[in-house]
């Protein structure tokens, strides 16, 4: 029974989660695009001579946060850079897309990316327990951060578990690559055949949480990843 549950999580649920996320995100984005446009400007001054570039800069470097809360900004910047590296690192697992050397046993960043993400998530979570952010926060704010924290933590455990095993890398980067390659090719092969290490349950948990994240993403504030630039553009043009 456990094997069947893990198989469901590791294969069919991954497809469902991705499909749900893509459809949900598309519906959300289209809903906003199709809404009536405001006839007047919402810009604030002074104006920028290159408003589009300024909006992109606002979205990616968050100058208002740097100015008003430098510590928060440091964590935010570290977190977002690490998220970008995390996406690249997961793509790097796929043999056809590999950026690092084929026989490299480590993810990009040698585990440091996961540590940065985990620490940042803890910081974001803890600051929500302090006034005045505590009074402003809603359950969804805590839950999404807890979910992210658990995803990052299980990712860290997978990374560390590989290194700490007395037998060496029990689930190697190449094994994970084979699993992801199978998903991409829709082979529906049981991942247990490829991932023989003792911490398979942690990998399964990591994938389950990631699936859940993908499914809640279109309904969460994480959608700001799609809207940060258009939002900043509103105050620029």
């Amino acid at each position, binding site marked *: 029974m456990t094997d069947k549950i893990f198989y469901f999580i590791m294969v069919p649920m991954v497809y469902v989660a991705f499909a749900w996320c893509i459809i949900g995100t598309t519906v*959300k984005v289209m*809903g*906003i*695009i199709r*809404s*009536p*446009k*405001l*006839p*007047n*400007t*919402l810009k*604030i*001054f*002074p*104006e920028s001579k290159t408003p589009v570039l300024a909006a992109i800069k*606002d979205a990616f470097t*968050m100058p*208002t*946060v740097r100015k*008003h*809360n430098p510590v*928060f900004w440091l964590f*935010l910047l570290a977190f977002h850079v690490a998220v970008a590296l995390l996406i690249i690192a997961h793509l790097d697992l796929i043999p056809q897309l590999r950026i690092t050397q084929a026989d490299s046993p480590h993810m990009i960043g040698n585990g440091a990316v996961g540590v940065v993400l985990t620490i940042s998530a803890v910081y974001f979570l803890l*600051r929500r327990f302090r006034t*005045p*952010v505590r*009074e*402003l*926060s*809603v*359950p*969804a*704010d805590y*839950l999404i951060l807890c979910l992210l924290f658990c995803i990052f933590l299980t990712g860290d455990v997978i990374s560390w578990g590989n290194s700490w095993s007395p037998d060496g890398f029990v689930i190697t980067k190449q094994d994970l690559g084979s699993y992801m390659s199978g998903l991409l090719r829709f082979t529906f092969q049981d991942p247990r055949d490829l991932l023989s290490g003792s911490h398979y349950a942690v990998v399964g948990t990591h994938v389950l949480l990631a699936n859940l994240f993908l499914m809640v993403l279109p*309904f969460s*504030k994480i*959608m*700001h990843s799609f*809207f*940060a630039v*258009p*939002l*900043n553009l*509103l*105050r*620029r043009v």
Partner: protein
Amino acid sequence: MEKEQREKLLELFSEKLTSAARMYLENCSRCGLCVEACHVYASCPETRYTAVGRAQNIRRLYEKYFKFSGKIAPWLNEAVELDDYWMEKVYETAYTCTGCRRCMTFCPFGIDTQLIQSIAKLMLIGADMEPKVLTMLADVSIAKGDNIDATKANFAEAVHKLESEVIEKWRTEAGADTIPLEVQGAKVLYVALAGKHSIIPAAAIMNAAGEKWSLSYFEAVNFGAFVGHPKKTKEIAQRIVDEATRLGVAEVVICECGTAYRVMKHMTGEHPFKVITFVELIARYLNEGRIKLDKSKIKGRITYHDPCQIARNGGIYEEPRRILKLLTDDFVDLEPNRQANWCCGGGGGLVVIGEKDFRMKSAKVKADQVKASAADILCTACENCHSQLSDLNEHYKLGVKVEFLSNLVSQALVREEKDYVPCACRTAAVG
């Protein structure tokens, strides 16, 4: 609350759901960065007086009635029912915020609380809960526009009575009207407020500059915008647009009224004429050498309060400072200033409604800022700000003289043309 009433209010809510409003309602991460931006929170630190706190009152309704997640798991984002109790919260969103938009300069996404506030204001109108004085004044403005021919003679007579006071400041050329009305082909249509304080100094300055101008029959202030009624806002602004178009003026110059300027400049679309503030016009006259100021006329240290709707929301930062530096050698900026300046606490219709206790309590930070400047004269370029700053001056015993910029300029006009010697450096300073 009756079901029909709720549906009516939600219909009004949905009318405001533009793409911008949806993005603002869906993407706030409640990071709390905007908390420190609000002058109300800075003066009385309660969560309900934060930009995000006010927006949450509307966002929680949006979650309940317009989002899938609010229907299946309302507890996740604390979705709420629209009822009589929650309409009190909606009122709080609408009328504890002055719409200064300082929070936009803190928010990493630039969320505009004023836009979210506009949803609250429209719902209050639908629930017949808006401050009635604002609706009444908006209706009076519209009625004046509908019956302008019947009131023109009375208006002309009232204006004529002001002419002697204008002449005291600047003699009128022979054959010229001191306060001209209905000037076809005038370069400038000056739109004043109902009080003589916004007509006399402006008339003296424009006459001194030899401007071909005409006084509008209509008052600049837009009570439709204060109450948040889009149709009335447009109708009130349209009266001025029609008059300017009929006279064929090149520029509509809005008196010292921040909201009037923002509505006319940024919220009523494209016009066949240019819209500027009177502050910009004064700066231009000085730049072109058409008027000259005597620095010895105004005594004491002067500071300047940037009206939010003219500065942060209108882009007029440097012109008033250039003018003031030609008025005095003792100008000091408030700290913070320009985009970061604290709101006076009187915008968004609060001065008109009254709400004096709240206005005084919520603008303590402004009073502290003025006190720290050690200025003798607190100058501004907005009627609302002037009223609020005057109240603050009295309430907190700041000991400053609150003045309109135009009034200071009119007092310092150099009267004799022969005295005027063009000064290259001065001209360069007023760009």
